[in-house]
């Protein structure tokens, strides 16, 4: 039997609140935030450097570095996964409480993904810049002021967005599982008495 005494409506997603949750979570774990960002910066900078490094270096060396690049990207994704898992498990109670107050699963999902996207954004932007700067400095060292023609600067218009996109994709990949765990967590975990 279902009496239509309720007018069951939709709950609101509240994008501004998503934003506040993501920012505050980064702030609360500032140390981790920086460390994780550092791994993103390192791996994207490495990738950018390999894309633009001076042509003088011998090719086999560059190829073996490509392998290292793949490794460093994997390490980076694992780092994000670990960080976001911690961020989520440390906030079980908070997330459960928010759900008791009416937070939708999609709200929680978005909050976690926004948090990692901010990490990825800052890390990948810095990484792209730092990678370019390293190439330029090395070029300057080897070739002096005429460095530009020795760098692999062709196709910068796709190289920069590609490296940036890889950085963002890695962080999102790493955050996907923790975000799903948080979104599907039952709210009753908040009811538990322990601190």
């Amino acid at each position, binding site marked *: 039997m279902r009496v239509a*005494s309720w007018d069951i409506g939709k*709950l609101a997603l*509240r994008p501004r*609140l998503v934003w506040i949750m993501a920012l505050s979570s980064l702030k609360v774990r500032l140390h981790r935030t920086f460390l994780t960002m550092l791994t993103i910066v390192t791996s994207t900078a490495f990738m950018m450097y390999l894309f633009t490094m001076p042509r003088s270096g011998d090719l086999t060396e560059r190829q073996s570095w490509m392998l290292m690049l793949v490794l460093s990207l994997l390490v980076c994704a694992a780092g994000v996964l670990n960080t976001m898992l911690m961020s989520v498990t440390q906030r079980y109670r*908070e997330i459960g409480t928010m759900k008791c107050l*009416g937070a939708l699963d999609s709200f929680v999902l978005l909050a976690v993904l926004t948090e990692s996207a901010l990490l990825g954004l800052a890390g990948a932007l810095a990484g792209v810049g730092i990678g370019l700067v390293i190439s330029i400095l090395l070029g300057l060292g080897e070739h002096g002021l005429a460095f530009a023609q020795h760098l692999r600067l062709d196709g910068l218009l796709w190289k920069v967005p590609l490296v940036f996109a890889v950085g963002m994709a890695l962080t999102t990949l790493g955050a996907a599982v923790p975000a799903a765990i948080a979104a599907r967590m039952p709210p009753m975990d*908040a009811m538990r008495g322990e601190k």
Partner: protein
Amino acid sequence: MTAPAVDWLADLQDQAEHTVMARGVSKIYHMGDEEIPALDGVDVTIRTGEYISIMGPSGSGKTTLFNVIGALIKPTEGSVFIDEIDVAQLDANELAWLRCRKIGYIFQAYNIVKVMTALENVTLPMLFAGVPADEAQDRAVEILDRVGLGDRILHTPKELSGGQQQRVAIARAFANRPAIILADEPTANLDLKTGEDIIHLMKEMNAERGVTVVCATHDHKMLDISDRIVWMEDGQIKKIADRDEVKIEISQMSEH
């Protein structure tokens, strides 16, 4: 164990009179191969606007009953009706709506969102319900003032005592004008005096706003403000007493 059909009819006749009906509710937890019965055939009807206390030793099933009534866990058997609606029929989004609009939760450990001020905590349920931000803020200020925190609305939980945090939780639970407040041992972490203040505040808000309050407690002193008292033991309801009976019992207890 389900209630006989006749009870059903009687219940339906005064449906405006009650907010929650639990019928034949059982809950068995599974831990590995072990089965832990937490609720065993609980029937209870909670009347609209009443203040009802649930008493019982630790492990008697109070929290489990709250979780079932509050639509936080599904019973193994039996049904819960809130405002005549069978909670088991609701999908995930409707359940979220139910938790947001119809139920206010008050926890033993306050569960104030740490990174937010008292004001932000109280606006949360209203924001999720779709209330415009400035209106939510005005209402939050009003209700925080009502619970006695008018001068602390911008404090974070770190800057508030346990009693003050529980006041924030009360304001937050009442914010969406729910049909029912579920308070699971809200005073267990507080000293005696503060606990009494909290219970009295809940009782006042219950009377003022006509919101049904269900409160699990250990404290016998709180019984005389309750309209009814439910005693639980081993996952079953041993007794439900009305206010008058309670008064008599309390006076008998104090004679000993």
